[in-house]
Structure formats: structure tokens, C-alpha cells
């Protein structure tokens, strides 16, 4: 099992790590006992994602998936962000090993959860 350069880059230099105080949307997916957990914080203005931060407990591909996903949705509309699939995440990372595809699903779900949180509060 070997990761792509892209995965290793996002793993070693994750983008948008951290928290947003009083986020407009917040999603938390996974559980520590399964070995993976992801948190996404969104700042949304006029339906556009102006800022995004994440924190992830998990393997390298979970960390890389969250990192690349935050890049993919930054400055996108909420509708566009909802279109991001785990397949797109895998593609953005130039692929994931078969056993690791579920880590990208986690990223997709975390984004969806954060946006749902935002929509439900609106």
C-alpha cells in the first residue's frame, strides 16, 4: 500500500487546520473507537464559504482527505460544496488505496454535516 505524492503532501502539510470560533456550520463525523474522527468548521457569508477549518483524528488518508476537501470548498457556494463527492476527493488526491477509500467518504460526510448544521440554523 503506497500513497500518492498528493496524499503525502496534504498529510505532511495539511491546509486549513484549526477551529473557527462561533462557526456558521459545524460537522463532526466518525468516532475515536473506529480510529477516525473529523471536525469541520465553516464560515459562510451570502451562501458562500468564506472560511473553512478542520481537525482530524485518523490515518494519513483521513487527514489528507479533510485537507484537500477544505481546499475544494473554500470560496464555493453552499450548493457547490454539497456536490463534492468522495470520488472527487479521491481524484483530487490522485487516488487512494482501495482499503482507504472510506476515509474520503468521511470527508464528504463531514462537509455535508457542517452544511446541514448551517442550513438548519438558518
Amino acid at each position, binding site marked *: 500500500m503506497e500513497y500518492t505524492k498528493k496524499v503525502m503532501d496534504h498529510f*505532511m502539510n495539511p491546509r486549513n*487546520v484549526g477551529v473557527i470560533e462561533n462557526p456558521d456550520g459545524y460537522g*463532526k463525523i466518525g468516532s*475515536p473507537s473506529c480510529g477516525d474522527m473529523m*471536525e469541520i468548521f465553516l464560515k459562510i457569508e451570502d451562501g458562500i464559504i468564506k472560511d473553512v477549518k478542520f*481537525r482530524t*483524528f485518523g*490515518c*494519513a488518508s483521513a487527514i489528507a482527505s479533510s485537507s484537500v476537501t477544505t481546499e475544494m470548498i473554500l470560496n464555493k457556494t453552499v450548493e457547490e460544496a454539497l456536490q463534492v463527492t468522495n470520488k472527487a476527493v479521491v481524484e483530487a488526491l490522485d487516488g487512494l488505496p482501495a*482499503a482507504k477509500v472510506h476515509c474520503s467518504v468521511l470527508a464528504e460526510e463531514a462537509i455535508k454535516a457542517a452544511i446541514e448544521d448551517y442550513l438548519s440554523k438558518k
Partner: protein
Amino acid sequence: MRRVYLDNNATTKTDERVLEAMLPYFCEVYGNAHSMHSFGQEAGRALDSARETVSNILKIEKSELIFTGTGVESNNLAIRGIARAYKRRGNHIITSAIEHPGAKNTCQDLEREGFEVSYIPVDKNGVVIVEELKKAIRKETILVTLMHANNETGVVQPIEEISKITRENKIVFHTDAVQTVGKIPVYPKELGVDLMSFSAHKFNGPKGTAGLFVKNGIRLGKVITGGGQERKIRPGTTNLAGVVGMAKALELATANMEEKMKEEEELRSFFETEMVARIPEIKINGKEATRLPGTSSISFRHLEGESILLGLDYKGIAVSSGSACSSDDLQASHVLLAMGIEVVDAHGTIRFSLGKFNTREDIEYVIEEAPKVIEKLRTISPLWNEFQLKK
């Protein structure tokens, strides 16, 4: 960048002297050890001499040594072989909760064939609970199979104590000594076992050559059937270069062993003391038990193992999370869970395993770099941040 290999429980570098000993058996002495002509006889003498070396070192008879292809194969041959040969006497097998997949999955497979298997628990240090083992014995028990030292924690099991019990109860006893042979003194007859598996690549020998001690008088069914090699117990053309390499590797590993063990233990002690001093919220697993001198299993709280492994790898440091065989599946280690370690902590556990080529400089590099890797990953971890807030 410095590269530090701390995954010697997974496999080791072949010693240059071992390779040198093997070289004539590829292009010069290339006969089949079972052929009658002079090419075969030369090969046969080399095979015999390797068998003698290994037998002498282990203090067993030449007729008690079967060469196999892998440690996993030795485990299979021992466990399936006894199950088959003794099945008329009973259908119950005792093993532990912390075995290597080679033994564990074989026991599980035998369950599908109608055998009953008891998996004896371990205490919090990873030592098999002997009282529980005693209680598990039935009149149908034909085999106890127990590893000598665990591959993930290095914790050594009370084999001698247990062999007294198996002897009293006339139960065949197999130990998987793949992690101990070549690392600490191991003599199957002093341990009191009937069968013992070991594998060359764990002690700076070549991959693809392993052995099984089978005490004279013990009947053994076969896993692989064919011609007459290895007393018909393990047919297939013998890997002569590999067997010669294993003998040489064992010779080297057991020379000045006490001294080398002491050095390795000192190095590990230095490593663990520094790690604990430099990194908060870590725990050394099995620390209170007798351990192999070079193995250190450390749980880094609030982190996941693979990310630590790759973070260290980025710095040139090779370690493992769980056993290498299972790096494809994503379960938390059954060994750590059996010790009562929380699932989250088990996920964040790394095995550092030293070998004879590691230096103090290697360890100094690791204790410099590891804290940085851990700190960086913890800033990403929501669990770590939650924990900081709670404090």
C-alpha cells in the same frame, strides 16, 4: 536524511556474512540435496551441516529439526499437524488471545473443521494468565499452542511454567518462538515444549527459510504432501542457500548473546526514558513484564497509529503499527485490546523494534524527531484539543 530502521520485529537486514555464506549455494553447489550423484552429495553435506549447526545451537537432535519456508508455515505445520495426528484422542486446543495471525487464523480455521479452541486471556502487561489456562484444560485437550514472545509488545510468556502443566496432563505443547530465537537464549528442551517454530529473517538471516523443532516421538500430520524431503514431513526441494544462511545467522546471533542483549536493553531504556520525558501523554505497553530487549510498544494518546508511522517515515524512521501482516486491514490490534488497552489508545500505538545494526546515534535522532512529529499531529487532532480543554 538519516534513515533509521526500527522495525526489526517485522524483518531484518540480512547480515553480510550470512549472504557470503549463502553465495556458493547458487551457482557452485547447486545440486539437489536429495540427488545421489556427487552434485547432490555436496548439496546434501551442506544441508546436513546446516542442520547440525542449528540443532547444536538449539540443543536438539538433528532428527528433530524440519526446515520450512516461513514462520507462518512452521506454525501451520505444528498446529494442523498435531490436530490431524491426535484428533482421535480429542478435539480441543488451547491458545492465547495474543497470537500471531499465523497461529490465530489456523486455530480459527480448525474451529471450522470441528475443533474447539480456548483463547486464554492475558493480564494488563500482556502475559498469559496461567490460572485461566489451567482451568481451560479438558480431557479432550490435545494441544496447547502459545507464542514465546509477542511480536507487538515483546512480552515474554511463561512457557516453562506452562510446560510443566502440559506435561502433567500429557498435552502436546507448541511454542511460536519466531520472535525469540536469535534474540534471547532459547532451548526448546529447557522450555519443555514439544514443537517450536522459528524463522531466519527475524535474526538477520534470509527471508523464506524457517524451521520447526519436533521432539522425537511426537507424531505429526502433514500440511503439504509430496516427496521424501525433510523426512516426508515437509516435501518440496529444499532452499539450500536459505538453510545455510539460517545456520550462519543463528551462529552469529547467538555468539556473545548476553552482551548484545545487555547493550540492546540499555539502548531501549535510554530511548524509553527520553520519549517519556519529551512527549506528554504516552504509555509504554508491557513495561512491567519481562520483554525482549529491543522491543518498545508505545501508545501515543489522542493520535492514530498510521499517521504517526507515516510522519516518522517522512523523517526516515521506520516503525510499525500493529503487525506488518495486518497492515492491510484497519482493525485495532487484537493484542493490545486483549491487554485491556482502550480502543483509541490501541489505534495510537507504535512498535519500535531495535536490531543489531542500530546505534546510539540512531536513537538520538529518533528522540529528537519523534516529539516534533507527535506535536504536529496532535495540533490536528480534535481528541487532543478536547483533552487539553478538559484539563
